[in-house]
C-alpha cells in the first residue's frame, strides 16, 4: 500500500543556500493532508468530513508548520556556513599545495612582502608613538602651546613671560585648563651622593591638564601657593623608585633641593613623563619682580575649550597680541614686533622628528608599493606558467568565481605569511631603533608593537593583497580558455597583454626606487656637507660637564668667583689635562642668552634693526681649551677682575658685521654693562651646524659672576674616563655637596645635533637600497621571463642565422627601454615632490643636479646588469634544443 520502494525518482537537489523553506514545508504538509483526505474518502467519508477528520488528526497545523520552518531555517543557516567554510578550507589546502609546488616563488614573494610590511610596521610604530599618541592623555588633540615670536631677535616659538602666562591663566575664553611650565634643575643634597635632578616648576592646573591622578599622596594646587605653601614637591614615578625605592611612606618626607627643604607630597603615575626626564615637580612662584620684567621662561600649555578650533585660537591670539602691544609693560618694546602663535603639544614635542617621520613614512610606503609590484610581477609570471592549469580547470566547468576565489585565497596565504614575517621583522627593527636611538630621541625609547601598530600592520597587509593580488586575479579570471590551450599547443609566445602589464609593473618599480634613491642621496649630501662644516672650534679631546652652585650656600658674588677660579686652576693642574676653562652657555649645550647692544660712536641708523648679540661669560682658559682662535688683541687675563675696568672679547662675525675693516680693539660697547673690547676670537656655531654665525660678546666671569652654574671644559690628552673621575674628585675637594653632571665629550654634543639627520639618512638609505634591489629583481624577472617564453622564437631566429649579438641587443634593448620609462616617470615624480624635502636638507637644493645624475646612473647601471644576464642567456639558446622542446 505504501510507495516505500517504488516511485521515487530523484528529480532535483537544490543547494541548501537557495532552499525555499516556507514553500517546502507547506508542500510537505499539503501532500500529507491530501493523501489522508483521499484515504478517508476511499473509506466512505464525504469530502467535507474527510477534510475535517484529516485536519483533526493532524493537530494544530499552523503551529506545526511554523515550527518546521524554524527548524529548517536554522539548519540551512548552519549548513550554509559549514559548506562555505568547507569550500574555503579546500581552497586553502589547495593553495598551500600549489605554493609548496613552487617554493622559489613562494619564498621570494613572502620575503618581499615581509620586508615591505616590516619596514612599514617599524616606521609606523615610531609615527604612532611620536606623532599620534605621544602621551597617554585624554584630549591630547586639544592641548596647545602658546608661543611668542620676535622675528627681530630671530626668536621664533619662544616662551612667555610670567605676567603673560598669568594673563592666560586668568582668561577663560580660550582654554578650559591652563598651566605654565618652566624647566629647571636642582642639586639634590642631604641624601648620599649629591645629584643633579631635572625638574619642572608649574603654575596653574598642570596636573589636571594631563588628567593625572597621583600614584601616592596628592598633587599641589593653587590654594597651596595662595597659603604660602610653595615648598612642596611631587616626584616622578621613576625618580620615586630610584630615590625612595618605591616606598609609599615617602609622602611627608623632606627633600633638599638647591639647599632648601621641600616636602614630598605625592608621586606621579607610572608612564607619565613630561619632557621625558623631569624628576621633580614643584610649584612655580611668581614674584612681583618677575612680573615686572620677567624673563621669557614659561611654556604656556592649555587645553582648548570644546568648540574652539585651532584656527580660531590663532585669530584670538592675534587679537591678544594687538591688545598687549597697546599696553606698555605687558609686551616687549614695540620695535620688537612680537606676536603670539600656537602649536599643538604633539607637534612641539615631536620637534625635528616630525618632518623626518613624515619623510620616512612616505619612503616606506614607496617600499611597500615596490614590494607589491614585485609580487604582482612574480604572480603574473607564475600565472603564465599556470595558465594551462587554470584554463583546463575552466574548461572542466570551474566557473570564473571559484577560480578567482582560489587565487584570492592563495594571495591571502601569501599575505598572511608575509604579514607574519613582516611583523617579526618590524619587531626586530623596533628593538634596534629603540636601543640605538634612545639616547638622541627619548621618544623612540617607548616603541612597542601595541594594538594600534598591530592594526596598522593588518591594514597594510590587506592593502598589499589588494595591490599585488588584483591584477593577476582579474587577468586569470579573464583567461580565454580556447586561446590558452591553442597557444600552449603551438608553443607560441605569451599574450602581449600580460607582457604589457609586466613591463608596466617593472617600470613602476624602477620609478619608485629612483624616487627613494634620490631622496636618500639628497640626505647623504646634506649630511656630508654638514659634517664638513667647521664649527669654529675643535671638539675632539674636550671633556665637558656642569657644576651649579646652590644660591642658598653661595649667596655672594666673590664666593662664586673664588669657587670657579679654584676649580679651573685645580682642573688645569690635573695630569693629562692641557688646559681648562669654563663658560656660561656651552655651544651645543642647553641654553643661550642674547641681548641688544650699542657701539660707542656707531649709532644705529634710523630704520635699521637693533643690534643683538649672544652674551657669554668665560672663566679660565676657555678659548684655548675649545680651540677657538684668537684673531686680534688679547684674551682675558688675571688683571681683568672685579673692580678693574670692564673688558670684553668679541667674535669675528660681530667684528665683520659692525666694524668692517676697522680695528675693534679698544672700542667701547654697551650691552647692559659698558666694556672695552680687548680682542677678537673666531666665530663658532652655537647649537646647530646649519645656522648662520651669530654675533657674540664674551665677558669674564670674574667681572660678571651672574650665573650660578657653569660648563667646565677640559682639553685632555688622556682617556676621558680617567680625567672625569679626577675632575669629580677635584670638585668634591672644594665642596662635597656639589654634583658633577651632564658629563659629555664635546664631540658627542656636536654629533648629537646631527642625530636626526643621521638617523633619517641611515634609515632612508636602507630603504633605498632595498627598493633598488627589489626594482632590479623586478627588471631581471620580467626580462628572464620574457626570454624563457620566447625560447622557441629565439631558437628559430638563431637557426635562421641571427647573430647572438643581435639577440643580446634585442633583449637588452627591451630592458633598457623599460628602465628608461621608469626613470623618466620616477624623475618626474621626484621633481614634483622634492620641495617637501627642503626643510631637512642642508647646502643642497631639493633638485640638486649632481644627486639626480648619480641616482639615475646607479639605477641605470644596475638595470643594465639586471638585463644583461637574461640577454646572455637568450643568446646562448641552443636552436636545436629550443625547437625540440615543444
Amino acid at each position, binding site marked *: 500500500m505504501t510507495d516505500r*520502494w517504488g516511485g*521515487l525518482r530523484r528529480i*532535483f537537489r537544490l543547494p541548501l543556500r537557495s532552499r525555499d523553506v516556507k514553500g517546502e514545508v507547506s508542500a510537505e504538509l499539503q501532500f500529507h493532508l491530501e493523501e489522508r483526505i483521499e484515504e478517508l474518502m476511499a473509506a466512505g467519508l464525504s469530502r467535507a468530513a474527510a477534510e475535517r477528520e484529516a485536519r483533526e*488528526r*493532524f493537530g494544530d497545523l499552523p503551529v506545526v508548520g511554523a515550527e518546521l520552518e524554524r*527548524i529548517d531555517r536554522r539548519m540551512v543557516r548552519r549548513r550554509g556556513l559549514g559548506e562555505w567554510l568547507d569550500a574555503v578550507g579546500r581552497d586553502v589546502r589547495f593553495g598551500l599545495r600549489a605554493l609548496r609546488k613552487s617554493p622559489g616563488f613562494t619564498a621570494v614573494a613572502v620575503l618581499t612582502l615581509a620586508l615591505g610590511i616590516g619596514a612599514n610596521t617599524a616606521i609606523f610604530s615610531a609615527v604612532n608613538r611620536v606623532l599620534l599618541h605621544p602621551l597617554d592623555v585624554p584630549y591630547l588633540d586639544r592641548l596647545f602651546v602658546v608661543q611668542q615670536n620676535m622675528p627681530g631677535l630671530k626668536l621664533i616659538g619662544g616662551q612667555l613671560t610670567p605676567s603673560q602666562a598669568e594673563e592666560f591663566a586668568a582668561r577663560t575664553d580660550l582654554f578650559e585648563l591652563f598651566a605654565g611650565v618652566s624647566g629647571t634643575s636642582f642639586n639634590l643634597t642631604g641624601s648620599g651622593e649629591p645629584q643633579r635632578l631635572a625638574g619642572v616648576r608649574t603654575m596653574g592646573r598642570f596636573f589636571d591638564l594631563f588628567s593625572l591622578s597621583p600614584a601616592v599622596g596628592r598633587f599641589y594646587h593653587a590654594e597651596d601657593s595662595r597659603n604660602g605653601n610653595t615648598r612642596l614637591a611631587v616626584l616622578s614615578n621613576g625618580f620615586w623608585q630610584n630615590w625612595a625605592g618605591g616606598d609609599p611612606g615617602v609622602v611627608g618626607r623632606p627633600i633638599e633641593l638647591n639647599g632648601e627643604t621641600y616636602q614630598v607630597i605625592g608621586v606621579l603615575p607610572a608612564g607619565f613623563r613630561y619632557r621625558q626626564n623631569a624628576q621633580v615637580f614643584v610649584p612655580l612662584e611668581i614674584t612681583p619682580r618677575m612680573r615686572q620684567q620677567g624673563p621669557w621662561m614659561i611654556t604656556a600649555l592649555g587645553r582648548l575649550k570644546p568648540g574652539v578650533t585651532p584656527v580660531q585660537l590663532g585669530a584670538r591670539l592675534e587679537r591678544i597680541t594687538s591688545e598687549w602691544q597697546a599696553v606698555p609693560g605687558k609686551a616687549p618694546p614695540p620695535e620688537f614686533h612680537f606676536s603670539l602663535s600656537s602649536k599643538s603639544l604633539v607637534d612641539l614635542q615631536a620637534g625635528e622628528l616630525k618632518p623626518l617621520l613624515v619623510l620616512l613614512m612616505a619612503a616606506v610606503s614607496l617600499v611597500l608599493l615596490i614590494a607589491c609590484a614585485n609580487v604582482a610581477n612574480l604572480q603574473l609570471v607564475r600565472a603564465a606558467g599556470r595558465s594551462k592549469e587554470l584554463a583546463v580547470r575552466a574548461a572542466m566547468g570551474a566557473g570564473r568565481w571559484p577560480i578567482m576565489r582560489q587565487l584570492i585565497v592563495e594571495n591571502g596565504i601569501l599575505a598572511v605569511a608575509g604579514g607574519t614575517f613582516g611583523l617579526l621583522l618590524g619587531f626586530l627593527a623596533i628593538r634596534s631603533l629603540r636601543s640605538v636611538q634612545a639616547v638622541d630621541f627619548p621618544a623612540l625609547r617607548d616603541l612597542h608593537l601595541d594594538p594600534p601598530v598591530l592594526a596598522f600592520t593588518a591594514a597594510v597587509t590587506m592593502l598589499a593583497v589588494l595591490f599585488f593580488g588584483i591584477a593577476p586575479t582579474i587577468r586569470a579570471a579573464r583567461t580565454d580558455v580556447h586561446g590558452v590551450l591553442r597557444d600552449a599547443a603551438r608553443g607560441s609566445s605569451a599574450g602581449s597583454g600580460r607582457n604589457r602589464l609586466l613591463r608596466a609593473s617593472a617600470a613602476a618599480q624602477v620609478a619608485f626606487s629612483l624616487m627613494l634613491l634620490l631622496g636618500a642621496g639628497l640626505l647623504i649630501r646634506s649630511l656630508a656637507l654638514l659634517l664638513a662644516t667647521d664649527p669654529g672650534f675643535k671638539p675632539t679631546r674636550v671633556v665637558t660637564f656642569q657644576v651649579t652652585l646652590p644660591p642658598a650656600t653661595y649667596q655672594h658674588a666673590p664666593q662664586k668667583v673664588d669657587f670657579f677660579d679654584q676649580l679651573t686652576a685645580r682642573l688645569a693642574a690635573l695630569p693629562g689635562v692641557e688646559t681648562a676653562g669654563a663658560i656660561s652657555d656651552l655651544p651645543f649645550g642647553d641654553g643661550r642668552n642674547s641681548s641688544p647692544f650699542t657701539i660707542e660712536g656707531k649709532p644705529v641708523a634710523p630704520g635699521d634693526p637693533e643690534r643683538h648679540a649672544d652674551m657669554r661669560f668665560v672663566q679660565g682658559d676657555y678659548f684655548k681649551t675649545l680651540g677657538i682662535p684668537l684673531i686680534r688683541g688679547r684674551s682675558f687675563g688675571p688683571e681683568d677682575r672685579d673692580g678693574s675696568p670692564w673688558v670684553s672679547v668679541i667674535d669675528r662675525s660681530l667684528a665683520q658685521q659692525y666694524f668692517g675693516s676697522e680695528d675693534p680693539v679698544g672700542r667701547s660697547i654697551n650691552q647692559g654693562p659698558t666694556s672695552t673690547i680687548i680682542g677678537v676670537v673666531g666665530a663658532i656655531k652655537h647649537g646647530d651646524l646649519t645656522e648662520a654665525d651669530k654675533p657674540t660678546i664674551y665677558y669674564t666671569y670674574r667681572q660678571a659672576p651672574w650665573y650660578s652654574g657653569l660648563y667646565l671644559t677640559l682639553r685632555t690628552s688622556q682617556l676621558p674616563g680617567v680625567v672625569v673621575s679626577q675632575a669629580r674628585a677635584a670638585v668634591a675637594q672644594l665642596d662635597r655637596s656639589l654634583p658633577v653632571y651632564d658629563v659629555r665629550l664635546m664631540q658627542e654634543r656636536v654629533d648629537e645635533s646631527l642625530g636626526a639627520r643621521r638617523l633619517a639618512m641611515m634609515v632612508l638609505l636602507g630603504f633605498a637600497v632595498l627598493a633598488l634591489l627589489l626594482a632590479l629583481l623586478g627588471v631581471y624577472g620580467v626580462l628572464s621571463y620574457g626570454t624563457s617564453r620566447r625560447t622557441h622564437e629565439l631558437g628559430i631566429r638563431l637557426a635562421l642565422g641571427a647573430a647572438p649579438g643581435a639577440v643580446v641587443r634585442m633583449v637588452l634593448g627591451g630592458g633598457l627601454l623599460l628602465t628608461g620609462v621608469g626613470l623618466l616617470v620616477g624623475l618626474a615624480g621626484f621633481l614634483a615632490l622634492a620641495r617637501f624635502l627642503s626643510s631637512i636638507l642642508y647646502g643642497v637644493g631639493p633638485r640638486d643636479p649632481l644627486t639626480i645624475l648619480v641616482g639615475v646612473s646607479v639605477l641605470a647601471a644596475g638595470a643594465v646588469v639586471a638585463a644583461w644576464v637574461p640577454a646572455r642567456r637568450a643568446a646562448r639558446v641552443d636552436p636545436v634544443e629550443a625547437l625540440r622542446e615543444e
Partner: protein
Amino acid sequence: MTPPDLDLLRGTLDLLLLKTLSWGAMHGLGVVRWIEQTTRQRLQIEEGALYPALHRLEARGWLESEWGYTEKGRRAKYYQLTVVGRRQLAAEVHKWSRYSEAVRLVLNAEGAR
C-alpha cells in the same frame, strides 16, 4: 478506527522513526502508515509531532530529505537515513534494549519478602 492501545513513550519516537526509515526512503505519511501497520494499530503516531521530529532528525544530520514522486504522481518529500543516522540507530537500539531489559527485570522480580 480502533483507539490505540499504547501511548507513545516520550523519546521513543526518534527511535521508531530511525528504525522505520532504516528500511528505505519514505515520506512522512508513509512513516505513519508503516508504524501503525507494523504495530497492528496498537501504536498511533501523533502527526503533529511526527513532522517536527523528522525535521529535527534531519537538522541533526541523521536523516536527509529529497523531493520525489509517489506512485500516483504526487510530489512528496522523502526521508532517508544517513550513515550517521544508521550509526545513531544502532546506538539507540542498544540503549532501548538495555532499558526495556531493566524494566522487565523489575516487573518480573519476586517479592522481597
